[in-house]
């Protein structure tokens, strides 16, 4: 398997996904000022969907491209996590408008973020198998299936479904708030 240059294997897919996310964010926000109801609804639907897809499924694309183009494991994981991480950071930053910095940082551990991280685990496992299949078709690798991606997928899938099934996510949220109170009390001095 031949390793392509850094820009081609990692920077390009990351920039592409990030650009879609940023354009979608502004596109969705901007849709609210469109007067025509039908056009506004269509624009909101398109940009809302691409915003969601870029954050949630972007890692799958970045990881697959990185794998096929010869990125190392660490690089693939970092590159594929970048867009979701930036989205989480945006949400953390938004909290600083109301809360102190340290408390805002705790939002990284919010159930929604944890759920996204679990889901990314599932995607990366699947991306590994697909990338290997592509490379096998090219004759660059021999094995597609191996225990590691299957275990990652299995565990992630279990956690993704479990986190939702366990009280529709409410229980996880309660635990998150308990953690907050242990660390910060009521948040008021």
């Amino acid at each position: 398997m031949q390793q392509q240059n850094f820009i081609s294997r990692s920077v390009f897919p990351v920039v592409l996904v990030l650009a879609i996310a940023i354009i979608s964010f502004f596109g969705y926000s901007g849709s609210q000022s469109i007067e025509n109801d039908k056009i506004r609804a269509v624009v909101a639907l398109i940009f809302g969907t691409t915003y969601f897809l870029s954050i949630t499924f972007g890692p799958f694309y970045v990881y697959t491209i990185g794998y096929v183009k010869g990125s190392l494991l660490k690089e693939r994981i970092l590159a594929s996590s970048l867009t979701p991480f930036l989205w989480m950071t945006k949400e953390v930053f938004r909290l600083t408008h109301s809360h102190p910095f340290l408390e805002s940082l705790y939002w990284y551990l919010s159930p929604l973020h944890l759920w996204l991280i679990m889901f990314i685990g599932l995607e990366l496992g699947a991306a590994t198998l697909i990338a290997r299949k592509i490379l096998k078709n090219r004759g660059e690798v021999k094995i597609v299936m191996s225990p590691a991606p299957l275990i990652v997928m299995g565990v992630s899938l279990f956690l993704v479904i479990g986190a939702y099934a366990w009280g529709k996510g409410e229980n996880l949220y309660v635990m998150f708030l308990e953690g907050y109170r242990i660390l910060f009390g009521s948040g008021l001095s």
Partner: protein
Amino acid sequence: MKNNAKIKMNCRYILNLVGVVVITLIGFLSFGQADSAVMNQGKRPNIIFILGDNHNADFMGCAGHSFIKTPGMDRLAREGLMFTNTFNTTSLCSPSRASILTGTYAHNHGVKNNHISWTGTRKTFLEYLSEAGYSTAFIGKWHMPGGLPEMPFLDLYVSYTDHEGQGRYFNCPMIVNGEEVASRKSYITEEVTDYAIEFMENSVKTPAKDRKPFCIYLAHRPGHPPFQSPKDIRGMYDSQNISKNLPKQVDEYWFGKTDGNVFQGVMMGSYYDQYRKYCETITAMDRDIVRILDKVDELGLEDNTLVIYMGDNGMQWGTHGCHGIREPYEESIRLPFIVRAPWLIRDNSEKCDQIIANVDIAPFLLDIAGVEVPKSMDGKSLKPLLREPDGKFSDACLLEFWRYYPENTPSYTGVRTQRYKYVEFEKSRKPWLFDLKKDPKEEENIYNTPNGQKEVKRLQAIMKELKSQ
């Protein structure tokens, strides 16, 4: 003979005078005749206080909502008095509930956000009523952190601690007088209403001469996410076109998941569906309000029972780009509030638009029961308004909020008058000033305008005065 005639004349004069005085007194006191009759017969009124959760005041048939079915609330409004300007002084569940129970602002009762436990420093109206000889029941949602407090004065104490005190819509384990028991009915409003009905039935079993008046505090879960309703109600609003009920900017699929609204429990599914399900839970709760009213009739208590329906918070559905309860917009801070007291309300065709606050509830209930209102309470009785909805009451209501993680609203202090709303925020958010007469939808912040600046000082002075209470 002369003396006898003089004595007769004097007697006649005195009798006439007494007659005139008596008639004058009867006329003078006629406003309170029915009330006195209720009180003097030793029949202090029973009280049923029903509390909804996150109930936007516009989501009732009687408030003009386009499709929601709330026959119970509509009946209350028809037979009682509906208040259209009732406000939550701290727009968050636990502080609001503590204010309702104690008649004090959050800066006095201390439950400033949902992370702070019940302080117990202020007595609840239930305790005062219990001391005054009432049979009292707390039934339903407590929802303040730190578990359920000891309230040994209660005759019945039914609540739950599940899900941080939020409970579950279905099969919620209950704590009845300190003992955990399984739910007897599947749906939570039916479950707690059954306890209230049993309490009423047990109360009237006592012979009339020995009977104590009762007060039931019945706090429901509906209105709070995740919105779930019983099978026969689920889906009843599926055919409604929700886009007509929401601001144009709110799209069906992504609004609830973007720009901070993901905090609010609407991560999954369509926003329109969330709206429909919310309405279904309100209708489910209303069905049990109907049961309560029917039981009051069946037991023959309607002429001597005060029935109140109120919400703990309002709820924003997409207005100003927000979903939730914490921003000081009207949809969040305005509460549904209906009072039925047949012996006090003379004209139930009117609505009362006086400014009422949740801190006024406890003093009102004590006043209704003939119990002296403690000076430590911040609110005042609105009993006079039941007779004269246009009478003088409050000019303004204090609004205060302490940041509550992870809601993205900074701490604020504000004031709501009949015409203006002024709010000062912490952190970097600029103050709000809305002229509600000209701009009822709160779309134009006039804080930085010359007219706005003229009003600010006056409103700050009112705010300061209310805050110092």
